[in-house]
């Protein structure tokens, strides 16, 4: 799950594919993903893992790193 999310984030949100991100990289709070683009991340998770994460959980506090995303996806089933 982590690898798929990282690959999508690199493809969708990063201009330079060589930039390294890992499960702990802060994505929303560091401005890598802006809050209005988070919809595409929600849509990807729904498409790929068949789980629709409610928007109030997709915040800089609870959805900032890939690790947090995985925790929420696993919890929300």
């Amino acid at each position, binding site marked *: 799950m982590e690898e798929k999310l990282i690959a999508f984030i690199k493809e969708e949100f990063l201009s330079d594919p060589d930039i390294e991100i890992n499960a702990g990289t802060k994505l929303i709070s560091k401005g890598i993903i802006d809050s*209005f683009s988070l*919809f595409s991340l929600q849509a990807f998770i729904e498409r790929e893992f068949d789980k629709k994460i409610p928007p109030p959980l997709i915040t800089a506090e609870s959805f900032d790193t890939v690790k947090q995303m995985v925790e929420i996806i696993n919890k929300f089933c």
Partner: protein
Amino acid sequence: MIIGIQFYSLLIISCLVYWLIPKQVIRNYFLSAASILFIFYFDRYAALFVLVLSVYTYIFALLIQNNKGKIFYHRAGVAGLVLVLIAFKYMGLLNGVTGQLNKFISVLPVFKIDFLLLPLGLSYIIFKHISYLTDIYWGINDKGNFINFILYSSLFTIFVAGPIERFTRFKIEAERENKFSPVYVEESFQRIVYGLFKKFVIADWLGYFINPVWINHENYSIWVRAAALFGYSIQIYMDFSAYSDIAIGSSRLFGFKIMENFNYPYFQSNISQFWRCWHISLSEWIRDYLFFPLSSYFNNKVWQLFFVPLIAMGICGLWHGPALHFVLWGMCHGFAIFIYQVWMQIKRRNINLSTLSNKKWFTQVSITFTFVYVTLCWIFFR
């Protein structure tokens, strides 16, 4: 209302009684009653409205939580709330628009609703109740107990000027068995004084200079008008955030930690960041309950990038008041969000642009540009 003597009198008296009560559950009963009385003092109609609306929403919350037919109950509950908002707040606007259109086509219905008065705090309570029902529907919250919900709906410190707190957060605060701490008084006092300073010393003082220019702008040069516009930008921030400071500070006196509503919005480098820092409780509401659901409606880039920001921000504008200039103000922000998202897409595909945008001077120019754009948009707001 939250800068009047009645507010502070109730704040002090109710705070003293509140902390004399040993149990949090009973404190919540007391604070709900005090809040309803406070609303009743200013607007009897609104107090009744809060109670009726809370019973209505809580019944739907029960039905949604029972899981059987929850889609229907969620839609019906939210539709009822939206209809109430339209009936009380926007019928006048609708009447004006159809009246104008009828001059040309004469087939649209004419709404006669002059007898409906806008109850105090209606926009805030409706938005809070929609988020409450939707969070239960999404399974990220439960209905909680009724008295905590009444308190959430009526808490007098945040009733008129927000923030639009979420029940998910509020419930944790209300259910916590709290003990009095002098820190509450200290934090509360600091925050209220800070808010009052922003309101009476900065915002109102700026108003003395700005208002004459806005009223008789034709008598002033372009430079004076521009200065008044930038002054208004500062004034509206100071005024609006002052109310949030007072609301957050007053709630702290009862041990409640209410969400922050402003975080240096004029020092943000793009419109997306601006909306993460301006009226945060409203912008998060718009994002969660309009932006995301609308975006998933059609899987189409033009819809998601262009129409959704325009519609969502247009509604955000309309929330501020039943007038087309507010819609226009919101749509200007929606258009800026569209441009920003297009820029982000271009930037992602161009490494040179990406490197350029990471330069310090570029960030400073972006902050200035965002501030100037937001300031120009205030023309439509005022």
